[in-house]
């Protein structure tokens, strides 16, 4: 082939492609990046988070999508840790060029991801409860922080169980340490005493010496804050094997994990912004829709997965209010819109965080959670005083 012939062929091919591409551009979907722990410590809960996102996207697309465009999900595995999060976020932000990131992650993963989010200038809705005070102009949080979750448990142990001496156990990373630091301060503020505070690395599974220390410290109550999933399971199993029957407040367990643990989980107290037993029309229709879409494959909706569903709707509301997917406009709108979801009316209006209704519950023998008390619209307090919005 002579150079001139091949050049004109290339020109013709390019022209055809552009003509064909033009109409496709108009209907290009809005890409929602979901980096989540499909492997690693969060692998137990990640499937439920993905399912929530899938249902939200399906419902919104059926009603015409957002701003006339369909939503598309891009799920990536962050291996529940910092190294994996870097890879997942890099690929979503710079290769897949997603319009928004909506996901639940471990604090280690989130902290590694924030610089990438800032570099890529992509709005990020963080849907996981966490230890608080993580601030970025690009991130909004619709899940609870310690100021909302810890007081119900500590107050209950204090007043109803007469507990004065507490033992704290956690996983050695931002969430474990942050939650227990707040818990310790709150316990001491309300007149209690912390007689022990022990940590194990996130992937550690041998709690033997910590449990022995717990028994020798003879506390009135135990409060734990491990990474979600496997560490919760190993700690609870080993606690029960060692015969520990103290009032046990778990700051990081969800209904799905509790149900899987069977009788070992019975008696655990948890404080959450979502339980499947919430008696509202929105929750009932949500649960029905999930059951209908996933059937036998359904993973129990829980406090880590339901905020994901509401966050997708929050993005829809923000994009429609801003009439665009431009990141600066969407970020401004996210702090102003409210969503009516299974957890009630959620508005991320307090320094990028949201006031939430919290439920204090206890795991029953059959794995279900019985609500003991509920607290309306608990304020997250000043999480990010330096953020302008």
């Amino acid at each position, binding site marked *: 082939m002579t150079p001139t012939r091949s050049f004109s062929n290339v020109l013709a091919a390019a022209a055809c492609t552009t003509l064909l591409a033009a109409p496709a551009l108009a209907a290009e979907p809005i890409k929602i990046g979901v980096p989540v722990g499909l492997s690693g410590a969060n692998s137990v809960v990640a499937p439920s988070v993905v399912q929530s996102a899938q249902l939200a996207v399906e419902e919104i697309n059926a009603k015409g999508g957002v701003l006339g465009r369909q939503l598309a999900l891009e799920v990536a595995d962050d291996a529940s840790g910092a190294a994996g999060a870097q890879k997942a976020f890099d690929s979503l932000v710079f290769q897949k060029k997603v319009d928004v990131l909506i996901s639940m992650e471990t604090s280690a993963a989130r902290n590694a991801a924030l610089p990438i989010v800032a570099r890529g200038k992509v709005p990020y809705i963080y849907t996981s409860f966490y230890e608080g005070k993580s601030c970025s102009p690009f991130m909004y949080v619709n899940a609870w922080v310690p100021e909302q979750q810890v007081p119900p448990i500590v107050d209950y142990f204090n007043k109803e169980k007469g507990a004065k001496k507490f033992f704290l156990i956690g996983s050695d990373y931002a969430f474990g340490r942050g939650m227990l630091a707040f818990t310790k301060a709150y316990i001491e503020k309300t007149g209690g005493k912390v007689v022990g505070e022990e940590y194990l690395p996130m992937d550690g599974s041998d*709690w033997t010496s910590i449990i*022995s220390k717990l028994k020798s410290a003879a506390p009135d109550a135990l409060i734990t804050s491990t990474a979600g999933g*496997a560490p919760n*399971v190993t700690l609870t199993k080993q606690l029960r094997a060692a*015969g520990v029957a103290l009032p046990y407040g778990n700051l990081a367990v969800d209904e799905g994990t509790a149900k899987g643990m069977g009788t070992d989980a019975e008696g655990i107290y948890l404080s959450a912004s979502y339980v499947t037993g919430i008696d509202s029309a929105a929750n009932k229709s949500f649960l029905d829709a999930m059951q209908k879409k996933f059937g036998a494959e359904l993973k129990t909706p829980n406090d880590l997965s339901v905020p994901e569903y509401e966050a997708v709707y929050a993005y829809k509301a923000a994009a429609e209010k801003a009439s665009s997917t431009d990141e600066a406009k969407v970020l401004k709108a996210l702090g102003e819109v409210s969503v009516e979801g299974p957890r009630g009316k959620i508005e991320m209006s307090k320094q990028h965080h949201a006031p939430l209704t919290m439920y204090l519950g206890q795991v029953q023998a059959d794995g279900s959670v019985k609500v003991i008390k509920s607290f309306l619209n608990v304020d997250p307090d000043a999480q990010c005083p330096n953020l302008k919005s």
Partner: protein
Amino acid sequence: MITLALDIVTTAAILFIVSAGLLIVFGVMKIINFAHASFITVGAYAALVASRLGLPPVLAPALAFLAGGLIGAAAERVVVRRLYGRPLDAILATWGLSIVMGQLVTLAFGREVQFVPAPISGTVMILGEGYSGYRLLMVGAAIAIAVLFTGLLNGTRLGLSTRAVIMNETLAQGLGIDSARVRLITFGIGCGLAAIAGALITPLASVDPNMGLSWLIGAFMLVMISGGSLLTLGLSCFVLGGLQVLASTFISPILGGLTIAVLAAVALRLRPEGFARA
């Protein structure tokens, strides 16, 4: 005090159960089976299957041994046999095998953490302190495994052939011992033993595709400093396991996790051939 002593004894027992299979393979074949972690995982999933089928819990280790032994024998035939005399390549090959097995388990069972109910629960009163009944059972299991395999090695014809192969393989072949068959059976038994370990630790751990990995480094270190003898392995587990528990209790659990690796490195520096009488 009692609790601490029991912690040390039960930790040593669990380490012994996990490492015994690796030692048997190393002693006979002079290679480290890096797929050991995957066989632990296979054993745990075998226990999961046993509990789903409704079998009584005592059968779980037996099912695990069967699964691990058969897969191990197949692996020996297909992968390891070609790598006699090439120990470094064998390490690489078994590591690759472990990756393949891990992915197959993920494909079959999913990535999530699975739950196996504990066969016995609750505590036993020992000298005034309640202690986990299941952990005490592990001590019994470790002793049973040690007795069984010492008996196998010293009291059976297969054991005799195996000891001959351990001492001098070429000479053993010259005397008519089928060393290929000995290696096949040994590898199968070593992997079966790893599977039993996996089945036995499920009530204390979570069952997921990567669960065996955290045990591999510890087992590897213990086998390296033990040389080839089960007795030395038992002693190493007791000493190093004990030091790990002491470090975890009195310093911090995070440093405790490092203890075995650090001490093994020190021990090998002092005596590179291990502590067994050669």
